[in-house]
């Protein structure tokens, strides 16, 4: 018997676990990914510019394992960012919480769904 009313369970874990997964994934591989796709391959330094050519990118996105990698990176990075940006905007009292949720988790959810559709659209 408890004299305290038990509080309703929060659904925060649904957002916190993808946040944590995205944070860990980016902490382990984020610097290398940015270097490879955004700096080395575009400038042709250490990596050939053809590294991310249309044919190579297409072959990667058509490979089932490649699809999984792309989905994990894009979706989890966005869910990670969404959680942190939402909480910071909340700290800043930047607006009504529902609007902030649409602008953060909403974007992450939309990007996740579209990513899945695109990965299906590029074929196998």
């Amino acid at each position: 018997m408890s004299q305290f009313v038990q509080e309703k369970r929060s659904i925060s874990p649904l957002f916190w676990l993808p946040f944590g997964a995205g944070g860990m994934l980016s902490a382990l591989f984020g610097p290398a990914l940015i270097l490879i796709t955004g700096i080395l391959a575009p400038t042709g330094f250490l990596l050939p510019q053809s590294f991310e050519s249309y044919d190579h990118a297409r072959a990667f996105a058509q490979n089932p394992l490649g699809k999984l990698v792309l989905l994990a990176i894009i979706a989890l990075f966005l869910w990670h960012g969404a959680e942190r940006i939402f909480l910071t905007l909340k700290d800043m009292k930047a607006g009504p919480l529902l609007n902030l949720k649409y602008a953060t988790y909403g974007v992450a959810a939309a990007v996740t769904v579209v990513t899945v559709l695109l990965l299906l659209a590029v074929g196998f």
Partner: protein
Amino acid sequence: MSERRPYRRPMSPTWWANPPYRAYTLRELTGVAVAIYGLVLFFGLVCLALGPGAYDGYLAFLRSPFSIVLHLLLLAAMVYHVVTWFETLPKTQPKLIVDGKPFPAKKMTDIAIKVGAGCSLVLLLIAIWVGR
């Protein structure tokens, strides 16, 4: 004689911008960089699905000075994220007992940062090897 009238002082609306909370807010804002990089890859995927013409436009963007500078900034923010992420990591773990003594959080952070740097390095070397 005695009067009870508890007074609640308001919080500063800008507490998050000032010490001692500024470092915390900066740490959280690395999430913006992580999300932007996710969006850059997402738009690459969109262009890829649209066809070779659109994807060439994406590659041209990646090779533009704007994109290179953007990615250098993203890289700096990402490195800050790596360090602060592993500084926070021990807080989310149960106390680790080694030889009957609590394992220092600082040591756990040092090891984790080395593991993180190692993962990135291995991925980089694999990419360079594949791209030969």
